[in-house]
């Protein structure tokens, strides 16, 4: 009676989101009477195993194969499917990241089982009941899961990764999948590094601009403030649709989910599309002329005023205090 938890890593560096899945999974395993077991796939995976026991994994399955040189959705999906079959796992889960949702979908297709993506609650039983997010988190769906082997992902940021009270007595088990050409045709072949250092997803400060910024050039003061705070600039979908900023700067349901210490949202009305990308920020400061704007009413802090005057004033004040 096993719960398998896929732990994502990038060439040996564990993805933080995997620890969220383990945190969620060890609690679920306890309630469902299952053993909580982690799965690491591919070259270099063993070096990512360190924190897994502390987060509740009683066993770590290390899957290796000559073709598992890097991430590959089909190769990882096929590997996890074979492991789910050989262990007879009751359930298989991952964190609902790009990779987590993708790999579990591959497992679902291969096992012909349902897959409930991005859960925030799972209640075990004969039929599992789940609460999952829709619309990037602005709506919830209660759904039942009737399956032979249950497949779920836990919504990213739904729980905070925390170590177990007592670390598990954990063993490492090797697993060698049987992979043909079909499984390995989609392994990553190359990588292109565009940004080094902080990115939108990891920045401690994000200064975001919306339609209210008014133009491509209007972002210069936001760049200045972001620079002064060691942060980066983000924007809303209206901005990328107008071609003022590249899509890689978009914060939102169809862009990047940010989680900075503070998000300064300037001239952004706060439509659902944008809000769901910003809501994991620890603090939000809205700068807007409209005190009734959704972003202002949802933010913890607000300045009512024209961003074109407020943002440069903040930058000046930051410079003054830094001396």
């Amino acid at each position, binding site marked *: 009676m096993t719960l398998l938890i896929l732990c994502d890593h*990038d060439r040996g560096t564990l993805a933080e989101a995997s620890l969220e899945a383990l945190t969620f999974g060890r609690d679920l395993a306890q309630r469902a009477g299952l053993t909580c077991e982690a799965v690491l796939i591919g070259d270099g995976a063993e070096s990512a195993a360190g924190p897994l026991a502390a987060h509740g994994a009683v066993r770590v399955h290390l899957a290796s194969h000559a073709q598992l040189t890097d991430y590959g*959705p089909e190769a990882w999906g096929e590997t996890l499917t074979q492991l789910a079959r050989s262990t007879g796992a009751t359930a298989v889960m991952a964190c*609902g990241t790009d990779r987590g*949702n*993708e790999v579990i*979908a591959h497992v*679902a*297709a291969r096992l012909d089982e*349902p*897959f409930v*993506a*991005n859960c925030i609650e799972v209640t075990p039983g004969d039929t599992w009941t789940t609460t999952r*997010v829709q*619309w990037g988190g*602005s*709506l*919830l*769906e*209660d*759904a*039942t*899961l*009737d399956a032979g082997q249950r497949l779920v992902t836990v919504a990213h940021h739904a729980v905070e990764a925390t170590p177990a009270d007592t670390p598990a007595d954990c063993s490492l088990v090797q697993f060698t999948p049987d992979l043909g050409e079909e499984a390995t*045709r*989609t392994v*990553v072949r190359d*990588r*292109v590094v*565009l*940004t080094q250092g902080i*990115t939108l*997803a990891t920045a401690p*400060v994000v200064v975001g601009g919306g339609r209210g910024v008014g133009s491509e050039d209007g972002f210069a003061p936001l760049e200045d403030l972001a620079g002064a705070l060691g942060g980066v600039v983000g924007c809303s979908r209206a901005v990328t*649709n107008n071609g003022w900023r*590249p*899509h*890689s700067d*978009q914060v939102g*349901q*169809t862009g990047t989910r940010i989680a900075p*210490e*503070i998000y300064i949202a300037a001239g952004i009305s706060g439509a*659902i599309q944008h809000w769901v990308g910003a809501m994991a920020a*620890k603090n939000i*400061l*809205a700068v807007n002329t409209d*005190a009734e704007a*959704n972003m202002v*009413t*949802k933010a*913890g*802090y*607000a*300045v*009512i*005023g024209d961003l074109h*005057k407020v943002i440069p*004033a903040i930058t000046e*004040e*930051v410079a003054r205090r830094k001396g």
Partner: protein
Amino acid sequence: MRILVCIKRVPAPGSRINVCDDGQAVDTAHLGFTTSPHEECAVEEAVQIAEEHDGEVTVLTLGPAEAEEQLRYAASVGAHKLVLIPIVDVDWDPQRTASALTTAISDLESSEGPFDLILFGNESADAGGFQVGIRVANALGRPVVNGIKGIDLADGTASARREIDGGFEVYEVPMPAVLGVKEGINLPRYPTMKGRLASKKAEVSSTTLEAPTGGQTRVRLHRPVEQVSETVILGTGPEAAPAVVDLLEELGVLS
């Protein structure tokens, strides 16, 4: 070059989503509808590829009869053929949807020839199941990669780029292939007047299909409990700057 794009008609909410009393669907009484954003970009990408490689773009949707509106929009920006699988229920579960789409695609391929490339959106804006394209690809025995924000085709291979934090992963996928694309792969064009007029006359072929329900069943939709927080107004206009920087200091981001 034959390209298929699978799209979904979704509501276009503003700042708040309401749910029908029975909890089975989003209350769309006062909402417009649109093509799910990733899929709008998938249509644009397909049209661009067709323009470059002398191709033909077919757009397929499973949805209510009104989804004809989204198919015609696709025609107005350059899609050539439109196919609707009409359903009466609010939303089919992912397994059922994938099963019907697989049947429809197989039928289209046996009558009109195989597709070199099938594009899906990475996930739908509303249900967000993250799986239909992968299930269809698996059923058709074709390679599939999700999260794609760049495609180059050459010599029977789709070179596909996927955004990761700070860069791209590159996949070399043999065609025929399935790709799940993300918004940002392009900036979709607006329909021209000529395109709009032509789309009104475009033929929409409708094919009714049944498929077994899957193991995920909706009980109800509901809105998350909102954290009611009083917004602290730090001030009005540029005079608020010192209060803002006090806050930044307090949060420890002023290093």
